[in-house]
């Protein structure tokens, strides 16, 4: 340990250094939050998840008190599932792809972990993201193919449309865009979900399925949902969503595209609807 005090280069890795983790903890829904600190020895190429695993195996705080293991959620460990999303040093991101050598290169550096603030905490860093899936249902983010007989092959898709939609399809419903959005707020009561701002990800998913050859059958219904309270118009154009999206999905372009579709839909309804 003594060798580590002489400021190691970021990726030195040979000498173990200690990084200080400040973690916002909560014992269960509705329980008060508290901060606990842990000193974690860092092998080379650690990420936040490997540090949380170390803490789970050594649940003793920095001041020597025994505590419960910190709870978090993770699955794929390659920034594809979105389950391990949390607020790290004040900004939302996936913890699996958060490398300690970047975030805390020196001995004694601090890394702060908090659960996402826009979703109800289940325990510690684990949040309830049900509202995001409710939002996908709200915009009917699927292709309607259920029926009593085979519909045959779907329509062909050109390479340009395919390229645009492929990017949108990478959304993993992680919640980063909602956590960073100043218009999106914690809404613990599901009764409020239908009229609270829906967030960038479901708006982008509506665009993904509106632009699908078969999915566009539900376009009008999707726009109906997005033109109501909590829909597209509740966006304040702060554009944080596109900045924090780990998949670099052009969320603000989707917001513009749905805004355009909503404008056209409003005129269509006024002048053409029976």
């Amino acid at each position: 340990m003594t060798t580590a005090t002489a400021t190691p280069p970021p990726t030195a890795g040979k000498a173990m250094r200690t990084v200080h983790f400040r973690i916002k903890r909560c014992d269960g829904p509705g329980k008060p939050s508290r901060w606990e600190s842990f000193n974690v020895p860092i092998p080379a190429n650690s990420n936040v998840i490997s540090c949380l695993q170390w803490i789970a195996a050594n649940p003793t705080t920095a001041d020597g008190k025994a505590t419960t293991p910190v709870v978090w959620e993770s699955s794929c460990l390659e920034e594809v599932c979105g389950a391990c999303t949390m607020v790290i040093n004040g900004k939302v991101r996936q913890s699996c792809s958060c490398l300690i050598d970047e975030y805390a290169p020196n001995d004694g550096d601090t890394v702060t972990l908090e659960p996402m603030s826009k979703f109800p905490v289940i325990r510690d860093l684990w949040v309830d993201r049900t509202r995001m899936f409710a939002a996908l249902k709200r915009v009917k983010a699927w292709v309607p193919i259920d029926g009593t007989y085979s519909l045959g092959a779907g329509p062909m898709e050109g390479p340009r449309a395919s390229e645009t939609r492929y990017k949108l399809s990478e959304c993993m419903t992680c919640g980063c865009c909602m956590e960073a959005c100043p218009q999106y707020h914690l809404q613990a009561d599901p009764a409020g979900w239908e009229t609270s701002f829906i967030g960038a990800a479901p708006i982008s998913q509506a665009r993904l399925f509106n632009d699908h050859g078969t999915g566009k059958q539900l376009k009008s219904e999707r726009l109906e949902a997005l033109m109501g309270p909590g829909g597209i118009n509740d966006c304040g154009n702060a554009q944080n969503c596109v900045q924090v999206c780990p998949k670099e999905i052009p969320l603000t372009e989707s917001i513009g595209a749905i805004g355009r579709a909503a404008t056209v839909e409003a005129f269509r309804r006024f002048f053409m609807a029976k």
Partner: protein
Amino acid sequence: MSEQQSFMERHHFLLRRLHSLSGIVPIGTFLIVHLTTNASIMWGMANHRAAEYAADPVGRGVATFQHEVNFINNLPFVFLIELFGLWLPIAFHAVLGVMYAVTGSRNTRAYAYGGNKRYMLQRLSGYVGVLFIFYHVATLRWGWTFLVPGGTEWSSQFAASTLAMALRGHADHFSITGLFVSLLYFFGVSLLVYHFANGLWTAAITWGLTVSRAAQQRWGYVCATVGVLLMAAAWSALGGFMFAVNVQKAETVEGVLYQEHHGEMAPDENAPGEPDLIEPQAALSTNRTDG
């Protein structure tokens, strides 16, 4: 979902889009007209047709500004234009704007992106802007002189001189309250110009005119240019009224225009006046209904 939707919820889309539209037409359009009119105190210096009223550049500016004000006040149904073209749309935009703005939150510390700061400033400028507009209209249009430094009542017939007095609090120097009001005007107008330019940018996204990031950037340059030009108009106008206008000389020019306009001298009876003022100053106490 719930059977009982409020009026706001039932007409959510229409109200949101009318709010967006009203910021551009009529309010933004009026802002452009208003600021270019005010800036005539500066660009009027190059107005050779005003040379017959004043030999000096500032005097030409005063004459041009007075000419612009007369044009506006001679519009037919000017009160109806004000009511339905300005006051009601501004009230609509302000009331809905505040209702929408309170649904937002501020997180510029954690997410210090340019877009997020503009979002925050858009709401801040809305709050400050609506208070400023109220003060501006109440004092200079509705004649709430108890809120004007020095108690000057703005006169549409003596537009530049009374405005300079109302900003400075004195004919030839700034009083403490005059300085405060002048600063209020500087910040209020600057924030409103920002609010319009940034609102023009976000409205294009709202309506779906700009979808791609490149289009949003290009339109951003256009909006920034509009903002810079309007800011230049606003600041030059304020600079003109705060620093350039000589109140006594301006009154002389305005007195000549008044005479031309009404075929008689400005009325000076019943004017309390001030001992150090020359004659046309007496007309200060007349209000716009005399015209």
